[in-house]
């Protein structure tokens, strides 16, 4: 049992996390992971946008909003603190009068615009934070997922400290990273959803240009079908869990296209997200498929450290929960 015998086999260390859904705290942890886990590159694999928008009411120099199910009122001078508290829950905040709130309730386009503004504002802030905090030798790759509006792509691509190689091959040390946030249709009818056949074409188009002996790492938001990385509760038309035998029915919800592409191209590692509750590691052929899952709502950043060697046959991983 020689101490550190395998240490020299590592040529690149990636830290991969996904599905942080607007959690400011999880993003800060993601940046901190570079030094804590001694990573050469950070990869955030999509679904970074939050899901909720909390209107803050202004009245007589006081701001009030519903936080954690309770109405909280603070002096206007404490606006930043209130917004930070709301954001810590993964929600966005917007100062809104009664008229604004009513309009959001009745005008889908107006609400959509408010969400898009809040999401892009937050991501711009995150890009600045990455610039301030990341060590210069660490690469930071952020790609979108199906819950992210298309409006975030230009924001990510224009950030000097962030790389967003969506639907591209990107060279990181000894590997080529192939990224795609597109998924098969979900009950929520989100953006970036495509039928299986179309998704297979898109994924193949990304991987096809890779040289035959290249060491490819796939960063596909959608997990492969029936891989153990894709178990989720079956939902009915009203988005409520289907109960069978007194228990929620759990079914594979991954993509057959992703599975087919992995089987065909055999990347050394495939990184996935999308299904928060299905943290798992599984091999499909020679490909090590990983989904670290997500616990963003508890402020916990789930991730996976992946070590890759210069030789094609060495890769190792360790799930983290920090």
């Amino acid at each position, binding site marked *: 049992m020689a101490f550190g015998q*395998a240490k020299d086999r590592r040529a690149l260390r990636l830290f991969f996390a996904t599905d942080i859904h607007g959690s400011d705290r999880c993003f800060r942890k993601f940046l901190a992971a570079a030094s804590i886990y001694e990573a050469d590159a950070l990869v955030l694999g999509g679904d970074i946008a939050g899901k909720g928008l*909390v*209107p803050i009411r202004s009245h007589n120099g006081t701001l009030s909003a519903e936080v954690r199910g309770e109405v909280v009122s603070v002096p206007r001078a404490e606006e930043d603190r209130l917004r930070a508290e709301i954001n810590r829950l993964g929600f966005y905040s917007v100062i809104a009068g009664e008229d604004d709130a009513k309009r959001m309730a009745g005008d889908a386009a107006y609400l959509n615009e408010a969400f898009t503004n809040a999401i892009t504002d937050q991501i711009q802030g995150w890009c600045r934070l990455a610039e301030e905090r990341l060590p210069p030798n660490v690469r930071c790759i952020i790609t979108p997922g199906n819950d992210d509006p298309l409006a975030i792509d230009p924001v990510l691509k224009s950030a000097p400290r962030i790389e967003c190689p969506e639907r591209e091959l990107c060279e990181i040390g000894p590997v080529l990273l192939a990224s795609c946030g597109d998924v098969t249709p*979900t009950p*929520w009818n989100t953006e970036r959803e495509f039928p299986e056949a179309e998704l297979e074409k898109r994924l193949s188009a990304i991987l096809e240009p890779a040289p035959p002996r290249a060491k490819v790492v796939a960063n596909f938001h959608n997990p492969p079908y029936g891989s153990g990385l894709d178990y989720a509760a079956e939902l009915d038309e009203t988005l409520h869990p289907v109960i069978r035998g007194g228990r929620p029915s759990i079914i594979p919800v991954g993509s057959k296209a992703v599975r087919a592409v992995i089987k065909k191209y055999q990347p050394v590692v495939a990184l996935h997200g999308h299904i928060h509750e299905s943290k798992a590691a599984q091999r499909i052929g020679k490909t090590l498929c990983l989904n670290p899952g997500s616990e963003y*709502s508890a402020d*916990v950043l789930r991730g996976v450290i992946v070590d890759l060697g210069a030789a094609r046959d060495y890769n190792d991983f360790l799930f983290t929960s920090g």
Partner: protein
Amino acid sequence: MADRTMNRGTGSGGSSSGAPASQGLFTRQSSGLVRELGIPAATGIALASVAVVNTFINFYSGLFNFTKVDMVLPLLLAAGIWLVAMFAYRYLLQAIPRAGGEYIYLSRIIHPAIGTMVGIATAVGFTYTLSANANFAAAYVPFALNSLGAAFNSSALTSAATSIANTTSCGQVTCSPGLAICAVAMLVIVGLGSIFSLRRIAQIILALVIFQVLAFLVLGFLFATHSHQDFVNALGSFSGHATAYNDVIALANKNNIPLGVDLGASLLVIPFMVLNYNGVLYSYYVGGELKRPGSTYIWASVISLVLLIVVWVGVWLLMRNTIGLDFMQAQAQVGGTTDYGSITSLQANAGGLGYGLVLSGDPITKILIGLAVPAAELAVDLAFVAVVTRVIFALAFDRMLPIGLAKISERSQSPINAVILAVAVGILFTIGGSILNIANISANLALFFALVLLAGSVAALALPFRRPDLIKNPATNDVDRVGGIPTAAVWGALSTLCALFTVGVIIAKPSVFGAFSFVSVGSLVVIFFSGPIIYLIVRQRRLASSSIDMNLAMRELPPE
């Protein structure tokens, strides 16, 4: 573009989707479901870990082991110790909001080897406790059957009670196969119950806790609505001796047992009462599944503590009034003697439940009293399985135990292999305990629990010095302080002092809290030191084949 309308999709926390604008949260169309445990579920786990009716056992132990003891002050002071510990653990849970308890805190804050030491020890110790609780519940089955027999006028039930309690020679000890079967059966039931999701288990536990509280309320009602003379008369009638009450006190006087109240003696009972509340904070073991960990944990713990104080102090005061302190003290001291047996058949260690049985006239009350202890122990074991499996899960997640033990059932979201392991080892302990003399091995269980509390307190004390980044206040970019000292350290230090006091009293009174023998101390040493050895072996083996040091998985990421 996706349709981002209000009132659709899933929101995490706060208002649910479908909220109108006036309720304060808009949600957009996005995927994913969120699992969370709220305050009622966490309170159920905390209360069940305590076992509300077990207080009678601890009342009895205090009265049996010390003379001139009253329980009010020890109950209040012990609650104070847990209150201090509660605030110390709050900082730990806020800094590291995940399942695993002391193992997680110590491995992340002090050192993985220290964390593994306490983690393995709690896994083993709590699994033994599962077995001990099952044995304890089994010992009460005859009492329950007798109560039910009295309620239903069924001689078959009372005969069954006698049959189950029959003893025979088993290996090194005299055992009762009937009771052993009851204990194993209970663990099997617990194992089957633990396959459900934690939320469902918490609901079952809460129902069992409500049943216990109901039994307590009925007892309280009995004590409140009967006079002291009623009890004297009822005991006479129950025992077939009209003067049974005074005879028990006279027997104590004849044996020169001092009766009354002495403050110093009462203070020595505090460790019993600390153990009485043991478990009241255990919702932190499922910290990773709590909705808003810090506040949910505090609310669950405070509600549990206040409820226990009110119920226990209230029942004790009612017992003092209706039964009489002198009688309770005398009965505990002479309850095991032949002379006592010739006066009455009232089981001395049944305490308040026995008094309730004497006073109860209706079958419903008899059923409630009879089933209170089995219900309590079932709830305790369900809660302990939830606790111990989360520790095993955390150890396995960090690769200290086989990774298969961290497997989560897709159906129930519970660590199914960890449940199977805990219940199987619990059954082995139960069977082993019925045919071997393992009393020496587990003699220092009280000390074990106090040491676990001490370990958690030290972690809280060290937190602001070792990992200030985990509790830094973003507004001040520093940890919160009182008089220049980190607040977490203040609570950690106070909790450490309280834990040290408890450990000190336990060590100073081995005749009461567990004698020290080569076997018992050796068992503690083996249990505690197996952890660091496992850590060293597992880490070195991994380093031999992998470039990733497993210690990386134990580094907590700073939140700011």
